[in-house]
């Protein structure tokens, strides 16, 4: 019997790593991946919680989250590719002409 908080703490750790990835990586793709990791961590927490109460609600939510992630990926990758076309780089630090 594993207490649910183990899972939650694990998910929190994964989430923080994802956050850190967004903050310290410059590669837009890796940043994006980090975001996926965050969502993934959240999913883990949801499934864990859902498993405690033996309900499908959590699973279904996770299913939707995965779908949304897929949609985001579609748009996000398109954007990154497009930017690469004009900037020849996917370093987000290069994209800082708008500021102030």
């Amino acid at each position, binding site marked *: 019997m594993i207490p649910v908080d183990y899972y939650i703490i694990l998910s929190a750790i*994964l989430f923080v*790593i994802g956050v850190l990835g967004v903050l310290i990586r410059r590669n837009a793709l890796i940043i994006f991946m*980090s975001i996926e990791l965050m969502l993934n961590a959240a999913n883990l927490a949801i499934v864990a919680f859902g*498993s405690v109460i033996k309900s499908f609600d959590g699973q*279904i939510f996770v*299913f*939707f989250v995965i779908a949304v992630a897929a949609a985001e990926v579609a*748009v996000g990758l398109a954007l990154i590719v497009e930017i690469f076309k004009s900037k020849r780089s996917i370093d987000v630090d290069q994209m800082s002409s708008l500021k102030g």
Partner: protein
Amino acid sequence: MTLDLALFLLLALIAIASALGMLLSKNAVYSALYLVLNFVTVAVFYLLLGAPFIAMAQITVYAGAIMVLFLFVIMLLGTDELPKSQVLPWQRPLAIVLSVLLAAEATFLLVTKARPAGNVLQPDESVNTMENLRQLGMLLFTDYLLPFEVVSILLLVAMVGAIILTKKEKGAR
């Protein structure tokens, strides 16, 4: 220490390690692969938690489709490694400090102040996988019909958006 716990700890270690691997790999391809590993590990967790459908979805959609797409883009753009530059010298230390703080806060809150109660399902408790799947499907088309439809629209929109963003305009360039 039960077997469950040992298994959990092992998997958790793998998950965290692979996440850190993604975080720290210089090469984007490695990062993506670490992430795939992470996703698979999490999928195993899902199985342990009695959510085989989600585990499958995780592997097919996430680890499969999405990450392949990522790898594909990485390869396509050829930007697996970025040249070194330090535009924001304080960004990294600050980010690490804040993240550690966040982790500390989260741990403190989740462990001491707001500890979630209850235990997760035993893996052997998980009932018939097919039955599980059927119930899920039923729910999706009854109780969760609206979100389901919304997701469909969302995917449509994402598709349209992606096309618009990448489609070559006639005479645009």
